[in-house]
């Protein structure tokens, strides 16, 4: 699911730090805005906008950090509103609900681990490409 490769060029120390920060940004925001699935996306968007004129390596990783959150945002939002309708609405806890929340948790945990790993590797100047999101970033982010 994750491929470690060499980038087109050797990124400098400063670039590696910024690229790594884009992943850390989403992690910090996950912890800060845990109940609201949109907070981490906002934080990553802001970081992305701040670095969209950065070097290719920085832009590429900011983009991957951003797009990787979109699918999770959808999964989490659905779970979030489902939970709200159970707590304050007429929905009741069902097997479907528990099954969905558990799968959502597995996906979140997977992304969390992948994000930490990527943040560490990019800090070393290594290029980490995620399954699907890496290819999508290649399409979106041009040199």
């Amino acid at each position: 699911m994750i491929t470690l490769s060499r980038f087109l060029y050797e990124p400098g120390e400063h670039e590696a730090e910024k690229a790594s920060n884009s992943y850390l940004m989403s992690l910090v925001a996950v912890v800060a805005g845990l109940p609201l699935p949109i907070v981490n996306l906002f934080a990553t968007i802001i970081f992305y906008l701040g670095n969209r004129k950065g070097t290719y390596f920085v832009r590429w990783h900011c983009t991957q950090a951003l797009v990787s959150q979109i699918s999770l945002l959808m999964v989490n939002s659905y779970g979030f509103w489902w939970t709200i309708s159970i707590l304050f609405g007429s929905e009741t806890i069902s097997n479907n609900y528990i099954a969905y929340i558990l799968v959502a948790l597995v996906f979140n945990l997977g992304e969390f681990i992948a994000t930490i790993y990527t943040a560490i590797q990019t800090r070393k100047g290594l290029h980490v490409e995620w399954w699907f999101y890496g290819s999508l970033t290649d399409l979106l982010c041009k040199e």
Partner: protein
Amino acid sequence: MNKVAYQGLALVLLFALLLFASNQVDWMKLFKVAKATEKTEEKIGELIWENIQFSEVEIKLDSITNAVDSIVTRICRNNKIDRSELKLHVLHSPEINAFALPDGHIIVYSGLIEASENQEQLAGVLAHEIAHIQLNHIMKKLVKEVGLSVLVSMAAGSGGGEIITQSVQILSSTAFDRNLEEEADLKAVDYLAKANIDPEPFANFLYNLSLEEPEMMKYFSWISTHPDSEERAETIVTYSQNLKVKNRPVLSDEAWLALQEKVKEY
């Protein structure tokens, strides 16, 4: 582009597959959700009933409670409903009202017994309330009006008396959703039919009360919390036409009259 599409599709499939696999496990049983829900409902029912007991007078005269109980027992027995799960309480009040609380409590006001022209009408209202309990409408209504978080904290002991009073108010004097009412009506007709009780008097009861004078309406809580009674009476009549019910009264005529007499005298 193709690579992205394939990988995206694979990711969606992985999610769907995991969801399908997760759905095969009975999490409700594993996490004992039903048991926890039952306990919460039991506690809430107890708290609300204690609140009602504090402000109302319960009739504990065996000759009254036994007669009403025998109607409930017939409905339960013929419909395979566990009678021990229902807790029947008759309260002394001129209000024509009956309502159900969480954990199977059924509250019947003496005014309702007096206002019923025959035992089948009373049986209809009781069957309707039993249907609300069996269809889990009571908790659904409370969760919708009060919210699950408040109910859970109330059951855990941190709920204020205000919330309990509010819950009593909601259950005794506000209407259910129209769909829930219709569902309970039709279920009640099924219960009555199986218990060999003619459902038509129940329809008549709804119809008659809807014709009452406006100044008398202050006593007719049951009808004010069950709107569109005329329309509902028609639905019940239409639905019960397909059922062939041989009416076998639970109480003898003398016993029914004696019940009404005792309620009046109380």
